[in-house]
């Protein structure tokens, strides 16, 4: 019996009369790579913000990393990593300064930070760039670094909001290798993406339409269910039903 690191039921978020997220129920298992798909405005980001403890659900309940999303959101925050859609590091800080900052925010000791920084830079082959301002790094490198910083404190789950936007396919593949490495180390990966080929890399995929989860299964099972050759087709079939713009 595997461990559920995310387990939510009937999670709902309303903004006035508008239901951004409408009673979604799902779970994610430890070490899983979970793809969270949906067209723009389907409610992905709002749902993710509720899971991360940034946004308070209007209704519903659940746990993330074993903590209640309503009452223990501060404890959730300590046990997750987050990489935002926009670039999430500070461009005017050096590579090591960014690592150091987030290490400090997650309460790691200076010694641990120093050791892990060395190991990380070596692993990424970034030793030369230790003192480079982040703004001078190529986009692909920045994203690798941002991901590494997001899992620097060894969280149970890392949330990635469209992490590979604007990166070329070769770089995206490298990035996904890093995601697999993290999953192998037991970090659960919760990822939203626009690229349907990336959906194929996930263990399981959910597709949101108009605030609901309309499909949830492994990519292979979804293709079979919708009688489609690719995830892209599956997505189009579902997205056609969308009523929101």
């Amino acid at each position, binding site marked *: 019996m595997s461990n559920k690191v995310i387990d939510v039921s009937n999670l709902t978020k309303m903004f006035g009369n508008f239901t951004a997220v409408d009673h979604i129920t799902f779970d994610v298992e430890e070490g899983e790579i979970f793809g969270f798909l949906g067209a723009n405005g389907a409610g992905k980001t709002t749902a993710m913000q509720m899971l991360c403890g940034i946004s*308070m659900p209007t209704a519903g309940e659940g746990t993330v990393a074993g903590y209640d999303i309503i009452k223990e959101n501060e404890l959730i925050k300590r046990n997750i990593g987050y990489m*935002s859609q926009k*670039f999430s*590091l500070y461009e005017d*800080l050096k590579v090591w300064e960014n690592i150091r*900052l*987030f290490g*400090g925010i997650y309460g790691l000791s200076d010694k641990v930070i120093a050791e892990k920084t060395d190991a990380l830079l070596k692993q990424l082959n970034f030793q030369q760039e230790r003192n480079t301002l982040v703004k001078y790094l190529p986009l692909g490198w920045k994203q690798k670094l941002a991901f590494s910083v997001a899992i620097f404190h060894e969280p149970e789950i890392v949330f990635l909001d469209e992490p590979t936007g604007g990166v070329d396919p070769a770089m995206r593949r490298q990035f996904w290798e890093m995601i697999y490495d993290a999953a192998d180390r037991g970090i659960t990966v919760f990822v939203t993406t626009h690229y349907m080929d990336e959906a194929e890399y996930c263990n399981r995929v959910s597709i949101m339409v108009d605030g609901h989860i309309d499909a949830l299964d492994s990519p292979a099972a979804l293709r079979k269910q919708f009688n489609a050759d690719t995830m892209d087709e599956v997505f189009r079939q579902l997205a056609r039903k969308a009523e929101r713009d």
Partner: protein
Amino acid sequence: MRFSGNSLVKQKGIKMKQFIAFVRKEFRHIIRDNRTLLIIIGMPIVEILLFGFAINMEVQNITVAFYDPKPDAFTIGIAERIKQNSYFNYQGNMQSMEKMEEAMRKGKLDLAVVFQQNFQEELVQSGKAAVQLLSNSSDPNRGSITATYATAIIAGYQQEQMDLIKIPFQIQTENRMIYNPQMKSSYMFVPGIMGLVLMIICTIMTSVSIVREKERGTMEVLLASPLKQGTMIFAKTVPYMVISFIDFIIILLLSYFVLGVPVNGSLILLFLVAIIYITLTLTYGLTVSTLVDKQVNAVIFSAITAMIPVLMLSGMIFPIDNMPGVLQTLSFIVPARWFIEAVRKVMIQGQGFFMIWKEVLIMIGMIFFLLLVTVANTKKRLE
């Protein structure tokens, strides 16, 4: 690795670590940004020198001539006073009004002093005598200041004579004369520049630095991290607090050593007033940051709501007493007005805490009001 999060001691340690990490980051942002650095260091120096020297409201080298149809002890006394004053440049006694008018027309004179006939007799008999002050007001500002100077000198002379010969008559004196006998305009401007510079640095810089995080998406990452909002906001304000205090000291030193403005009151009291005002403007910066989402808007919003009122309504340039009633009322809500008043009282007039408690209380009240607004807005956003 999993954080227990149970022990309070560990919690506190983490908070401190977060705080230090964040303050360090903020200082780096400032140091790395040349434009910010230039504003922070350059602005107070430029402003103080600009207002102190270039935009000098002081009028000097006022050319003056007298028309005295029948000189007597009083008229000679008044003329002597004006001649001796270093702001005036004596051009001579005119033989007729026609000659005087001609000199005025040619722009040779800034001020004509015309005594009435039988000045002394009139004064002794009726207790009244007239001096006409004709000031060249092609530059209205210079003209009115010239007239003010001369009026003040004559009033001073009359006061002396009244003491001597015991003739009762009403004398109007300019209030500013008491504290600023030479009417140095830098005395007036220094507190104003302090108010302006601190407002710009605290309000604009703080709001921009917070809004920048929203705009670039780093705020989301911070919100999803265990960093508490209170810690973040406090850590954000610390560098600007330090910098504005340094700027305050720069202005103080420049105005003391370069402009020769004295510090007549308690230096500690002056620092206290500055700290309260800095806190107030920082809080206003936080308030602005909850109202806007773009850096550009933060700058525009701060400039319109903070900078312009400081320039126009704080009494820095235009005396509040001379404003129409509506504007006088409006100036009540301008934080800099209270700061400038308090600084003038302490620094120039050398008064103590009991003379500025009203200004201090109003500023503290404003801090609490803005904090309430800020907290209310922040909650709305995260709800």
